[in-house]
């Protein structure tokens, strides 16, 4: 069973968002998503300074079998991306909510953050997909 920490917010497209103390947010993909993708072998993350619209394809995760887009769950400006992933994409498989984080962003609109799914709602959505 995949894990869905209750202190994070989630997008329907399987990204998680963690608000940080300095007003920025950390973004990655859910445990469910990494499990469905399988072993990751290549990750491309956006450069710092890039402006993203909510729903924009902003990163690529490639498993042995397929490439998948990661969509920005919020609008905002990228402040940092996880450089470790270039050499160790498996960090996303091993620790999707920790060492496998993908980017940090300064959100443009706090209302978008509030509109994301809770852990319980995200789990329900995943289960509905599987049904």
């Amino acid at each position, binding site marked *: 069973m995949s894990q869905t920490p209750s202190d994070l917010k989630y997008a329907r497209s399987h990204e998680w968002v963690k608000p940080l103390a300095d007003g920025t947010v950390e973004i990655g993909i859910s445990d469910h998503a990494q499990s469905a993708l*399988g*072993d990751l*072998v*290549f990750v491309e993350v956006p450069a710092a300074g890039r402006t993203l619209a909510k729903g924009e394809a902003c990163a690529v995760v*490639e498993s*042995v*079998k*397929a*490439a998948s887009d990661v969509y920005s769950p919020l609008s905002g400006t990228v402040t940092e991306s996880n450089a470790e992933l270039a050499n160790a994409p498996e960090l996303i498989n091993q620790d999707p909510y920790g060492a496998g984080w993908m980017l940090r962003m300064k959100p443009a609109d706090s209302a978008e953050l509030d509109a994301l799914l809770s852990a319980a709602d995200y789990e329900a959505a995943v289960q509905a997909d599987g049904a």
Partner: protein
Amino acid sequence: MGRRTPLFELHTRLGARIVDFGGWDMPVHYGSQIEEHHAVRRKAGVFDVSHMCVVDLTGETVRPFLGQLVANDVGKLRTPGRALYSCLLNEAGGVLDDLIIYYLREDFFRVVVNAGTRDKDLAWIRPRAAARGVQVAERTDLAMLAVQGPAARGIVETLLPGDARARAAVMRLAPFSGCAIGGWFVARTGYTGEDGFEIMLPAAEAEATWVALNEHGVRSCGLGARDTLRLEAGMNLYGNDMDESTHPLESGLAWTVAFEPAERDFVGRAALETAREQGVGRRLVGLLLEDRGVLRSHQRVVVAGLGDGEVTSGTFSPTMQKSIALARVPAGAADRVQVDVRGKLLDARIVRPPFVRQGKILVS
């Protein structure tokens, strides 16, 4: 729900992720495709390939029948147990399937065809066999396990049925040959580039054999690892690297077409001779990606001065830690290409497959 092999329940208990594969519910991996891949390169792994179709052809005229049916020459099969890899062609020279033919007796040959082409192949073979007085029997009573890796043969040896003498005969099998032992048929063949056996055995014995292999340290492996292993080994996959719209000469399979003896009139021969005379305009090559990224089938390949081609199979090679591919490109002198990977042109080099065999990287 798709078709299921005799091992389906076991796969589920072992935690396999099940996917649809040509209408079959098959394990793609049991947790980590990459770990399964490494297990086969370094030690041993077992694959359920029972979805492949075993067809027994019997009758006095089976050898001349096969001589006409397939592009490689069964006349090369002189010792019982020997196997031959061949394409099954249509009249236009297009590849209907690729298959392995085992010569068992003068009136008994066994053919193994792909799962996804099973119905098409049987529809092609049955009327032609009937016309030649050859009987066709689909062996749905058999399961098939591929046990592959440097330690595979030694482990299988301890699990073989039969007496010491029969077991010794199995261990003496030359590559690409097989023999019957205690209701099993064991062949020294595979699709991974490693040594090992493919075992056809009664469906009822498959589960216990798999569990015993696991207990002897053979890792359960899904079709995901089978695909990355075969691509590293430079082996074609039917439906990706060749199909009815391509012929063997542009699919890296010229070595499987026997134009000699000249009087053997196999299906597709005339079309291939015409293609050969006119010059084959495309060839299947190996690609090694020099930039970071992953090559995938259907990506466009740009060959400067010659035109565009297409990736037919691409993946990330767990052994080489680089992306590799097979691609069909315009014939001509070229050693560097660019591949359109998600909108970016990345640099790749043309190399001669195989990329990896017997645990060793062969291209750099």
